[in-house]
């Protein structure tokens, strides 16, 4: 529920004013002193390990072993020329310099971005619509909700196999359905220009329910008063949605969007099982290319460099989303006040 209070204008103002006044370091040190109590008041005193720190050790060991070490090792590997079966040679940044000259990598970045953008936006739109529908009270609502979230629970590879059959241009059920409504047959994943939208279709089908669940949670938390006053003011359905529902569920949409983005950008199983990056290289995302480089070509050094750049891309996208979150929640606040 803390998210909801954050969304309310007052709380948000308080939040932003805190960020506004104190620099990050100051905030961090404030938090440190609060948490540890190791005493920033007496800098002269000799340093002692804080009393809580034996309890941190197990977590620290795990973090070092499964996060920090692999990362340091990957960065180290990315500076080697290392093909399995050949000796390793230190090459500095050569692997990174190779990236912009590698057309497959450049192309893969483009595919990753378009794939991610589409498979964040579409589930968000459809998930929100579904949530608004399923928030209404009607017969068999619980049962239908249950059916609706089923795609989310299926195994991606199984889904991929079924969709591959459905996409088949001659024998697939999708073209049959199109023919029933008089539309011409499509090539779906068998054509370079339609392959990414087709894959996004699968992704959307699978992950719209997740967005719906998150947004339903948000809808359940909205107080009824704004709706009552809107009714008195005579607002229509669209106005109610645009000026009340949407601003109030915005924080939930951001959470859903964030989860979706991280998931979509590193999506691998669906793409690999349906197209293996094809036709040609039309659906080769960074992740699929990375797999080829590391585990088909056994070029571990170059593969590591791709992994590092891929990681930085995810961080950049997350930062962008956080920035947008602030901006958009601020405008929603304005919209609320108007």
């Amino acid at each position, binding site marked *: 529920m803390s998210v909801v209070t954050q969304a309310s204008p007052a709380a948000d103002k308080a939040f932003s004013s805190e960020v506004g006044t104190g620099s990050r370091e100051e905030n961090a040190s404030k938090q440190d002193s609060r948490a540890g109590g190791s005493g920033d008041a007496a800098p002269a005193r000799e340093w002692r390990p804080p009393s809580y720190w034996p309890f941190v050790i197990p977590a620290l060991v795990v973090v070092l072993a499964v996060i920090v070490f692999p990362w340091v090792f990957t960065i180290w590997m990315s500076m080697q*020329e290392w093909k399995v079966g050949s000796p390793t040679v230190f090459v500095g940044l050569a692997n990174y310099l190779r990236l912009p000259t590698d057309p497959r990598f450049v192309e893969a970045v483009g595919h990753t971005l378009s794939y991610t953008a589409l498979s964040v936006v579409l589930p968000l739109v459809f998930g929100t619509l579904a949530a608004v529908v399923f928030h209404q009270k009607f017969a068999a609502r619980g049962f239908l909700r249950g059916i609706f979230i089923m795609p989310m629970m299926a195994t991606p590879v199984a889904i991929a196999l079924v969709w591959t059959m459905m996409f088949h241009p001659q024998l697939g059920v999708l073209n049959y359905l199109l023919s029933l409504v008089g539309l011409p047959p499509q090539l779906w994943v068998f*054509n370079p220009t339609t392959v990414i939208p087709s894959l996004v279709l699968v992704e959307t089908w699978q992950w719209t329910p997740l967005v719906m669940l998150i947004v339903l949670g948000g809808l359940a938390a909205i107080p009824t008063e704004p709706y009552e006053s809107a009714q008195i003011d005579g607002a229509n359905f669209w106005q109610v949605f645009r000026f009340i529902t949407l601003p109030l569920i915005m924080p939930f949409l951001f959470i859903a969007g964030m989860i979706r983005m991280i998931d979509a950008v590193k999506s691998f199983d669906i793409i690999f099982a349906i197209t293996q990056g*094809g036709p040609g290289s039309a659906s080769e995302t960074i992740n699929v290319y990375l797999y080829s480089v590391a585990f088909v070509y056994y070029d571990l050094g170059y593969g590591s460099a791709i992994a590092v750049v891929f990681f930085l891309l995810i961080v950049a996208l997350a930062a962008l989303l956080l920035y947008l979150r602030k901006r958009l929640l601020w405008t929603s606040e304005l919209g609320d006040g108007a």
Partner: protein
Amino acid sequence: MSHHLISRRQMLAGTAAAGAVGLTGFPARAELNWKKYSGTTLEVILAKGPRGDNLQKYIKEFTELSGIKVESEQIPEQQQRQKCVIELSSGKPSFDVVHLSYHVQKRQFEKAGWLADMSGFLKDPSLTPPDLVESDFSAAGLQYARNDKGQMLSLPWSVDYFILYYNKELFQKKGVEVPKTLDEMAVAAEKLTDPKEGIYGFVGRGLRNANMAMWTNFYLNYGGEFLDAKGNILTDGPEAVEATKLYQRLLTKCAPPGVAGFNWMESMASFTQGRAAMWIDADGWAPPLEDPAASRVVGKVGYTLVPAGPKGKFSSTYGDGVGIPAASKNKEAAYLLCQWVVSRGQGARLLQAGGGVPFRNSIVDDPEVAKGVKTKEWLQSVVDSAKISKLGLPVIIPVAEFRDIVGAALTATLSGADPATELKKAHEQFRPILERSEKA
């Protein structure tokens, strides 16, 4: 010991190889001592498929014969390749016998020094039966198994030739002759194509990477070579452009929609449904095509050679073999198993099941073995292909990159891109990769 040899002969008698075994003149040389390594346990890593099945199905016979226990696992090809490479590069592989794909792994395995030299074992009569001699393997097999110094680093097991499958019924209906040249094939494919009926003249792999294996049939027959004397790659020359134009013509004008995403499985689906008149692919698909439960073209399929090009008549060839890791502690026992795997009895079973074609001429040419093969026309196409076989991929380390990059260029031509431009682009992209991998 001799008791076991006899029982093995009797067992083989049932598989139509008996006559041939009788002819080999046991024991002209020193007796092969099968029991020498009795009690050893061997680990075998296999790629999933008919060859692995054939080994696992009859492995009990080998254990009875030799007293060697065999633990084998079959893994899907792609993962098997990864697992082998990772374990071999670690220096402590968990297996004593490895099933390798020559067209992908030969150069890589050779350069890394992962395989034990079998040359000595082959000449040792206490390990090798007299009928197993190097000269019995086909030229392609020897080219795959030997390294630059002439050492045998593996035993050639099973070879894949590309052949032309055609639908006799569709040919008859339109009064079209079976093509002898690539040009005739393109003309025939256009005549046979009837999109309104859902019938297409030709089907084949359009999918990147997989498509290379079919394209090289055209490329070789247009007179193309993969490498020049200095080891530079040669796939942007006029032969490549001509071959690609043919590829583009066949797959855009005469093939089912969506062919750019087709691998052999989708191609086979079109062909077995009677929707495609011609299909060029590896030779192993006779059993599904002649299986009434899966195919609508049973008894209507013709099998023949890939049509000749203006400058050649070749069948692009791929294959796999069995090797022993240099790090194995049971090399002699492992060798006993390897030579059993490529033995006459096992080879005859493989051929008769339609699961693969042995690299050994004495098996493929044996009339006794041929009696057990159901589809005679298929066997003839395989025997004829063997005479004109030529390696279908360059013997280089980055084969996988080569297939991906040139394969993507080929797929691009299916959306209308210009063959010469695409090949040039692919060539520029691949050249530095080749230089980088060969210099190390």
